[in-house]
């Protein structure tokens, strides 16, 4: 009914299509996920700042321009720590180095580890918000009842678009005690 040459053609068609199927599956992991991260990083979309320490480049301070920085803290579900910014609002000049502190306390009877995740609004400001020191770079362990003042040092880039006057930096803390225990070779106290 179906001659041999058609059979061979069918096999070729099936072969090519199967490659497409596998390629599209791989596309998700190899292209979509990394591309999403790359684009977010490069364009500062959805306000993700990269977790990298900014290498300070000497630059002049623009004292004619004042940017309002708001600090906001959120606890993720099941995270009972007390967590708040000590400064709610700071007024800074682009190019200047600034310091602030976030206060955290673990009220429970067990040791815990937190991860603070930053998010910036407006999202296009993210690529101009340089952190030279941030408690969000690392996981933050706090023993039972322990409290800490966690440092944030940052510089606003001079090239921040002129129409941005207020930047909101939000931190959400997550309980990563289990994640940290799974990854850590050394047992937590």
């Amino acid at each position, binding site marked *: 009914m179906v001659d041999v040459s058609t059979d061979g053609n069918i096999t070729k068609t099936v072969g090519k299509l199967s490659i497409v199927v596998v390629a599209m599956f791989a596309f998700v992991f190899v292209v979509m996920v990394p591309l999403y991260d790359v684009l977010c990083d490069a364009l500062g979309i959805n306000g993700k700042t990269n977790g990298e320490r900014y290498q300070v480049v000497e630059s002049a301070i623009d004292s004619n321009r004042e940017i309002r920085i708001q600090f*906001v803290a*959120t606890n993720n579900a099941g995270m*009972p720590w007390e967590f708040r910014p000590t400064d*709610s609002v700071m007024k800074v000049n682009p190019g200047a180095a600034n310091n602030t502190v976030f206060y955290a306390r673990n009220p429970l009877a067990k040791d815990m580890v937190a991860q603070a995740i930053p998010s910036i609004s407006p999202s296009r400001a993210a690529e101009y918000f340089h952190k030279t020191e941030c408690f969000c770079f690392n996981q933050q362990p706090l023993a039972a009842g322990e409290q800490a003042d966690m440092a944030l040092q940052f510089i606003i880039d001079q090239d921040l678009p002129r129409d941005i006057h207020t930047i909101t930096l*939000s931190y959400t803390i997550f309980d990563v005690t289990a994640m940290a225990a799974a990854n850590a070779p050394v047992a937590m106290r």
Partner: protein
Amino acid sequence: MHSQARRLFKLALSPVLLLLGLLSTGALAEEAQRWQMNLSPGVTEVGAEIYELHMIVIWICVVIGVVVFGAMFYSVFTHRKSKGAKPADFHESTAVEIAWTVVPFIILIVMAFPATKTLLEVYNFEDTELDILVTGYQWKWKYEYIDENGENVAFFSNLRTGKTEIYNEDGKGEHYLREVDEPLVLPVNTKVRFLVTANDVIHSWWVPSLAVKKDAIPGFINETWSKPLKTGVYRGQCAELCGRDHGYMPIVVHVVEQDEYDSWLAGKKVKAAKIKSLMDKQFTLDEQMVAGKTVYNQYCVACHGVNGEGGIGNAIAGSSIATGDIYGHIDMGVNGVPGTAMQAFGAQLNDVDMAAVLTFQRNAFGNNMGDIIQPIDVYNFKQGQ
């Protein structure tokens, strides 16, 4: 034949006109009305622009629909075999294909201009005057007014409709499912910036009259803004499936005159300061033991015994709860055990007294845990619920 077709056409047109009439009048009030068929312009300029755009598109679609469906139904009635119609045999025309590709394309371009303008307006955050952090929780909203001096005011906004109304035991109130215990209060004629995030899953903050809808994503912050031009009460709902009570976490916004807002905010700040002063206080173990014993003898002794030996209630001495996880112990004190004699004392004891009595329980009767529970711990626990 011809006049019959014309009569039919008029007959078909009248309900269309009726519908359009209803559409344009149904939505003048800010609060959604029964039988409301249309979007409302709301109380903002952007909302009015959105409404205009919406009406323009509807009219364009109506006109296209009348022409296209008119042609189709005309054909259905005229080009019938039963009327003796003989089928033509034309089956292609490049000119016609080009025409009905280009014309819709042009119509779309025309629509794109006002749509772009309105979108750019929505993304224009110039000159915002007030910042409010909106956090979606399962299943309620938290509002925090961000203050320049760190005197933030924060509170939760929970659905106020009771279970008896929901389960049809009582009659339903006028604002069934759209009423809350603590509404968001805003000053009129002020451009308010909303920072939207979430505590757990994705929620979405939607108030139609303020022309605002923004997703609340856990770990990320979104921004949107609104400038209400009229005082009043505006209601909205969560607009992203977020679990069991997605339909039960409404939003109520009171837009008031500036002076009313100022005095409301001042009152809230006084309350917040009071709590903060207590929260900031870190009591010593001795202070908590003394205060806690008083509270224990007032509230707990009847069921749990003078020496923590139990009775109607379980023993506190050696109790796995009083010597276990602090979180679990606070939970027991605040929420009790529904359906038993152990009430939810969170409603009866303020955070200072609750912290004291729990500390007392953890250290008295031989428990000797060495823990001190502070008022801020109880406060945080309640906030996180």
